[in-house]
């Protein structure tokens, strides 16, 4: 997806509701994140635009809460519980996802495969 600062982002979004798993004192989500405005975005293998400083899902644990909820590696996280994730530091993103008093996080994500599928179906018309 193209992310040009200052231009509206047109993307297909998916809503993912993750129910955290309680493991003793911890609440587990079962995925890893990369990215953030304070990170080096050129290292991101999932973004189309290497200047995209958004938060991406770099790994999803097999059978974990995130996979069960439908999150996939490469997804870009746009929002967490209504909070914007497109302009946050890595640590800010981590915090929004790991609030101790929240059992459920609702993510808004965009996914390349979805985008490509839509683009292809549009091209056929």
């Amino acid at each position, binding site marked *: 997806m193209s992310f040009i600062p200052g231009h509206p982002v047109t993307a297909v979004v998916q809503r993912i509701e993750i129910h955290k798993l309680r493991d003793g004192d911890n609440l*587990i989500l079962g995925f*890893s994140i990369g990215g953030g405005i304070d990170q080096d*975005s050129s290292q991101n293998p999932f973004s189309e635009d290497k200047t995209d400083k958004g938060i991406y899902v770099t790994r999803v644990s097999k059978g974990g809460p995130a996979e069960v909820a439908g999150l996939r590696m490469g997804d870009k996280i746009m929002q967490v519980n209504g909070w914007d994730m497109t302009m946050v530091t*890595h640590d800010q993103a981590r915090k929004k996802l790991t609030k101790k008093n*929240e059992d459920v996080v609702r993510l808004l994500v965009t996914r390349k495969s979805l985008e490509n599928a839509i683009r292809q179906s549009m091209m056929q018309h």
Partner: protein
Amino acid sequence: MQKPAQKEAKSSDSHSSQQDLMKTSSAEDEKGDVDLYRGEEEIQKELQDKQQPKSAAVGETQSSVSAAEDLQTYSEREWKGNTAKSLLIRKGYEAIASEFNLRRVRGDNYCALRATLFQVLSQSKQLPALLHDSEISEWPKEMHSDQDFIREWQFPFEISKSKVQHLEQCLELLKNKWQEAVQCKSLEERERMCQQVFRGHDEEYELLEALKFLMLRTAIQLHSDMEKGSDVPEFCWLLFARDSSKCPKTFLTNHLRHVGFSGGLEQVEMCLLGYCLQETIQVVRLYKCDTEEFITYYPNDHKNASPLCLLTEDDRHYNVLVPKKSSKFDSYGRPKWNPPSDGQSSITTHL
């Protein structure tokens, strides 16, 4: 002007001296040797009571909200011992001690309203849409003519005009004070303004009564929306699900008009308060430490990124939390932004 806390003491005194007088006059019929006059000691005591009003939570000062103090120190002083409860409460205090300092609030049944009002006047950056309305002074009249609502209103002080007129005055005062607060140019100026308001005088109570009025007005609007089938915030269903408050009238009669007198605010009423002021009230509830309700938002959709922070040990008495200088919030309660790094790191975090 009399202070309500002291007024309670005085009215019970005058009540008992009334009773004494009554007893005396009937006793006189029988005995004729009962002393009608109070002794010197009684008079002295009454004078002393007048000069040192009881302000349980706040010590010798007149202020309704004390100066900031360290949470850890306070916790260790107030909760000595090793009962399960003490340990839990101290744990709660410790969890937030690096982020906040404590300001103790006068401990009467107004404390939830008072703590919220204090935070509003010291932090709010703008008037809520509700108060922008230029017709604000018409509202008490409108509400009263609708269903005779104001007849039952209780004030904690004597009023010289009608209840409706007095509520108009309270609302105007709230609007003016809020505007004054927002327009303060420095923290010191704002703090001075707050100290002027929170002195336990009638002005403070007029503002608190104005808040109650706004809550009622909002409840009436929300109830009407509910009846029409429009979307309402979740807490409305809870507010009007109680047998004792199925509609705004009974909400007023059985709950709201007693706030400050014989009762405080229930949690669902805290949601109403936050909602009508367009603020989110963030409460650290110490007895809920180690549970998901340790920090609860009223209302819980937490729309406001800069909530008003309060603390309670028991959901009954509320104190104010102010950010510590070294914390992640600046002195206005706004989050401090970390400067972005030069982008050399590319870490992943497993959650």
